[in-house]
């Protein structure tokens, strides 16, 4: 088998389009959502009464320790499909749009459990003097979190959050499980049509590498600068 440049040339625009329209959108939106949810979980685990926080911890560990492809299938075909939201669509585009939304929710939930751990590490790295100072100033609990704890924890957690976002980025091909037309599934289609996968899979790998490696380097530099 030899490398066919014409296949590569035809495939690249299609794959880049899927990359920017699906892969990147899912990664960015789900990263932001999971960073928010993760912070909520981390604060919840500390602030909620014992029993409730145990329940939350258990739910998070259920989400964290089960595979994303299975979670995608459950979300799409066992939870959402029976409601009819997926079948009452006017076009294929709208149907795929809704599948992408389901994908974003699943990715956000899964990675929020990891990010909650990153925040927990960040919160624990804050010296107890900070808490005591807040108490001495009789700052309300809410304000203590907002003005004292979260900004400092954020600084310590940021590189780790970034690393999880990169990990999520590389997990986006899992969306194939619910037939979302993301980059790798497009690659698979093109490869199948041409009976040649070497070009498309090489391009897919290169796109992932080119997008994730510089970000990873950035996170490593950030880690050296921010974490103390």
């Amino acid at each position, binding site marked *: 088998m030899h490398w066919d440049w014409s296949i590569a040339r035809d495939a690249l625009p299609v794959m880049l389009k899927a990359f920017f329209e699906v892969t990147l959108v899912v990664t960015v939106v789900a990263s932001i959502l999971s960073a928010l949810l993760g912070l909520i979980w981390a604060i919840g685990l500390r602030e909620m009464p014992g029993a409730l926080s145990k329940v939350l911890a258990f739910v998070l560990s259920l989400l964290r320790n089960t595979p994303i492809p299975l979670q995608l299938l459950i979300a799409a075909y066992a939870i959402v499909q029976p409601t009819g939201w997926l079948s009452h669509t006017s076009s294929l585009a709208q149907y795929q749009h809704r599948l992408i939304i389901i994908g974003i929710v699943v990715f956000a939930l899964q990675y929020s459990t990891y990010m909650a751990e990153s925040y927990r590490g960040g919160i624990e790295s804050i010296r107890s003097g900070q808490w005591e100072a807040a108490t001495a100033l009789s700052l309300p609990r809410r304000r203590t979190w907002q003005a004292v704890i979260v900004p400092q924890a954020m600084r310590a957690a940021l590189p780790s959050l970034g690393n999880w976002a990169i990990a999520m980025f*590389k997990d986006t091909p899992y969306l194939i499980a619910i037939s979302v037309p993301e980059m790798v599934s497009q*690659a698979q289609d093109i490869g199948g049509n041409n009976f040649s996968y070497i070009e498309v899979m090489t391009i897919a790998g290169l796109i992932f590498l080119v997008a994730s490696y510089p970000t990873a380097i950035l996170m490593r530099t950030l880690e050296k600068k921010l974490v103390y």
Partner: protein
Amino acid sequence: MAELFTVPAGVISTVQANWQQLLGGLKITVELSVFGGALAFVIAVVLGLAAMTRFAVLRMISRIIVEFFRGTSLVVQLFFLVFVTPVVFGWGSHPLVFAFVALGLNYGAYGSEVVRGALTAVPKEQWECTTALSMPWVTKIRRIIWPQAWALMLPGLNSLMVMLVKGTAIALFIGLLDLTSVSDNLQKQGAERFTVYGISFVLYYLLAMAFSAFLRRIEVRAQRRLGLKPTKTDTNRATAGALA
């Protein structure tokens, strides 16, 4: 309210009708986890040690392999193995082998960062001592460095192993009948969705917990051997660095 506390008859009949297939799926998932995990461990140790040698060429080769397998997605690597290598090398199609090689290479690359991190975290004096005693490289690693690094790397390897167990679900994409694809097939054939998906959800959870508990036991033992009290370890922090 009463229905909430009794198992609906549908669940039992679904289980009765499909348990053999689900068990078959579980078998594939466990096989992929065990063999994939073993291969990943070997690769992680080899690449991790290579990153610490004094030969610049070895360090560079290890670096390139690690960055390559961490930077490209697991699914892309799997598809490359499944769709490209049989044509290029003419070695036929072996989905199970390809899946476990992909898992081993990908998580092995992540694991090598954990191994390297642990080796670096062994106090510098320990390394210097071995030089002062002019120990051969093998003795130095085997007798002095490894036992200390071993206890340090287990938390990171532990959470990577859990990720690998979850990663075995890539089998779904190449038609291997693992737990995820079996439950998806059963669902498509009309079995009660919540039951078949729910069963494999719970099985994955238990499997991940079992591997994690097993590695945690090894970690406690490694710490005891060094005369340390077993500590509560932060597996998350130990992995985060290796992930990017």
